[in-house]
């Protein structure tokens, strides 16, 4: 069953069509990779799907509901959460605060509970806070970031910063996670860990869509692959089908990266 579906989705910048008439669907529980040469419109696709840019035409459906034109936070509330390509974090926050910020979406703590959290008035605030902290600890352990809770995010090594980016998104309790180049800039060891992490994320019942340049990762991990070129879908299928697809090879010809 399709959890995310785009119908005739287009995004134009002036005369340039970054995404054009794209029909794509993501099935529940799979890991889908979106690949394509530089400038193929992958990141634009993410931005349009998650509400950061309005589409020029077409519709986006998430879980059967039309989410076209909703604001990013509304879309995130429905369970469609993204990560960012660049390492974008909260510069002044320690690691744990990042995860907590992600967790607050589902938090039901009201202003009154916050203000009157003295024990003999509102037990609920403290209970909710303890729950949040426990969830945050669990996510950090899952990411292998346990022990650096109080470090400033800017002091983390680059690979860990990327993982923290995933952690923020995970904290927001997604049904579908869009990851924008999660392993770019990581060394082999970190990339392997990130891949096992993605499998782990899927095992938690979260569908994963990633945009990635690193072909080794893509071929290794994906159930299905969608190939974009100049904003159009030129191929779709399992990694072995894509590997054999002549059109894809043509699109990548002249590009340094090797398919396979």
């Amino acid at each position, binding site marked *: 069953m399709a959890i995310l579906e785009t119908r005739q989705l287009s995004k134009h910048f002036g005369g340039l069509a970054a995404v054009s008439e794209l029909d794509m669907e993501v099935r529940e529980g799979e890991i889908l990779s979106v690949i394509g040469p530089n400038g193929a419109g992958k990141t634009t696709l993410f931005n349009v799907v998650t509400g950061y840019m309005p589409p020029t035409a077409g519709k986006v459906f998430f879980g059967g509901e039309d989410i076209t034109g909703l604001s990013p*936070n509304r879309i*995130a509330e429905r369970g469609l959460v993204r990560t960012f390509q660049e390492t974008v974090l909260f510069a*002044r926050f320690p690691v744990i605060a990042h995860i*907590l*910020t992600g967790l*607050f979406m589902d938090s039901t*703590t009201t202003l009154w509970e*916050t203000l009157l959290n003295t024990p003999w008035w509102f037990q609920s605030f403290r209970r909710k806070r303890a729950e949040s902290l426990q969830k945050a600890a669990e996510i950090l352990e899952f990411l292998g970031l346990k022990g650096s809770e109080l470090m400033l995010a800017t002091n983390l090594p680059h690979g860990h910063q990327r993982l923290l980016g995933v952690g923020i998104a995970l904290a*927001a309790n997604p049904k579908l996670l869009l990851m924008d180049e999660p392993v770019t800039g990581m060394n082999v060891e970190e990339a392997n860990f990130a891949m096992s992490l993605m499998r782990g994320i899927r095992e938690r019942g979260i569908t994963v869509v990633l945009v990635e340049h690193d072909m080794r990762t893509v071929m290794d991990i994906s159930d299905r692959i969608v190939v974009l070129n100049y904003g159009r879908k030129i191929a779709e299928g399992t990694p072995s089908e894509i590997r054999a697809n002549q059109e894809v090879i043509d699109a990548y010809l002249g590009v340094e990266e090797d398919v396979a």
Partner: protein
Amino acid sequence: MSRRELAKWVGLPLLALLFLAAPFIFNDPYYQHLLILICTWSILALGFLLILSVGQFTIGHAGFMAIGAYASALLTTKVGVSFWFALPLAAVIAAIFGAVMGWVMLRARMGAFLLLTLCFAEVVRLTIVYWPSLLGGRAGFPNIPRPDAIFGMAFDSKFPYYYLILFLLAVMVFVIYRMDRSKFGLTFKSIAQNPPLAQSVGVHLMRYKILAFTVACFFAGAAGSFYAHYLTFLSPEYFTVWKSLIVQMYAIIGGIGFMIAGPIAGAAFLVVLPELLRATETFSFILYGAVFILVIFFIPGGLLSLPQQVGVWRQALRRRAKIPGGIRPWQYLRPGS
């Protein structure tokens, strides 16, 4: 006992005691007047810092204080409400203005927001100036009644006024403290640092910005109401954009990294300093100018970061390195997005 615990269980009660005992220590109406001013401006400076914590720079906060002040003055003189109802009502009126204006203005980016707040504050002030029949105009709003006696305390000396404004300040400190240490504070700061990332995990940017703005305006209104009944006279000249700007300097000079202590320390320092040096008006202008510049250049984290700054200097001296710029919390503000 760790240093932190020591500060919490010994330092804070001592500080609270100091604030409570202050009018007895400085038992002179003029000094007490200064104490009252420090508390009043602290409330405004705290509000400014709360708005800054969601990444917006307002220069029209005195406008909301004016709304509270004139609302309270009108309610007591024209409607005949008691001060004790007028004060919360004035605060609520200012908060409603804040919520509505916040809803309109907070959509703007930081640059435009700054200009919008300036215009709003001027519209408020000029409305007062050009509506003499109701608001007194340039000549001022005279004969605002003193607060009625409460708990057997008549408002005939500075003492009750000081405790009243101290109470308002304490309530605001309490609210900000609790918000700061809950999801609200964290969310505010996340919005200031990286709005798209905050949005990606479902933070409704406008909702939180308006919340911070409304809370700040609520207390500005309360402070305005207090100010009206303390002076028993209001003039639009009390609420110019310059007033807003100076009050905000209190927060920045105190240290924007210190959500609560910074504005209060800054207000206390800058109100007391000219008195301490017995400065004339001319000289206090020079003094303020010099303090603003020197603090930014040598203690960029604000006065309260002085201990950390000294540490930075000492480390640099030990390494015989060039003295670095020091702690600069404003580097992490990412406005404009």
